[in-house]
């Protein structure tokens, strides 16, 4: 059997990769993808802890996280489309003004 700590290490690595993506990338779509990586890292630790404690609540919260991720992706991508129409760019530095 795999120790619980190994799952948590994978989860920590994925979360760190996702946060590095949010900080480093200059493309709105890749930034949204990095947020998805972070959400999945957290899901993995929830399921691992749920299995460790023999409790289904870990899996239940994963479904809620997936739902929120779907809602976030829909609204986030709609925002990206609206912003792209104004600036013809996906670089977050292009959207520095508060009003246009």
């Amino acid at each position, binding site marked *: 059997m795999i120790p619980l700590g190994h799952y948590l290490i994978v989860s920590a690595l994925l979360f760190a990769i996702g946060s590095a993506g949010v900080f480093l990338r*200059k493309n709105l779509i*890749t930034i949204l*993808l990095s947020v998805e990586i972070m959400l999945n890292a957290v899901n993995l630790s929830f399921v691992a802890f749920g*299995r460790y404690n023999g409790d289904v609540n870990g899996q239940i919260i994963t479904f809620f996280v997936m739902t929120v991720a779907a809602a976030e992706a829909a609204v986030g991508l709609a925002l990206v489309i609206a912003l792209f129409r104004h600036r013809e760019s996906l670089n977050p530095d292009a959207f520095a003004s508060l009003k246009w």
Partner: protein
Amino acid sequence: MAETLAFYALAGLAVVASALVIGQRNPMYSVMMLIASFAGLAGLYILLDAPFVAMAQVIIYAGAIMVLFLFVVMLLNAPQEDAAEWDRTHPLRRPGIARVGAVLATLLVVQLGWALSAATGLTAPVGSRGGSATVSSVRELGRVLFTDHGFAFEATSILILVAMVGAVVLARREGDS
């Protein structure tokens, strides 16, 4: 033994594919790599006796959400980050304040590693405390979801409705009525 091998293969797939997501200039390849990463995670969920979550991961994440991303990437004909621009503005290749993000990410890794090494009980196998019968049962999952978490479930439906209306309003062209 087979389980250990499967764990390392799937965990490696998930981590390497995720690293490639942010190491890629073409958003199209990033989305494809993220789908590979989600496949690795779905395998890990099966190892954790959570087959229903694994299927939801494949169907909802890899199936629905990633198709939405791919659709937007193609719709916008998303420009690749320009190679010269990438070299000039990439924080890892630029000295000064822009390194802060990389430093923060490294700090996060160190902090998470420290927290994990300080915690006790992490060497116990994941299946040591509960039977797999409870956690892998879809019947039990449904019972808890619709009784203990009934309110959260209903609130989620409102969240999805709001997200749907929000996406339509935001993506609508100005001047349309």
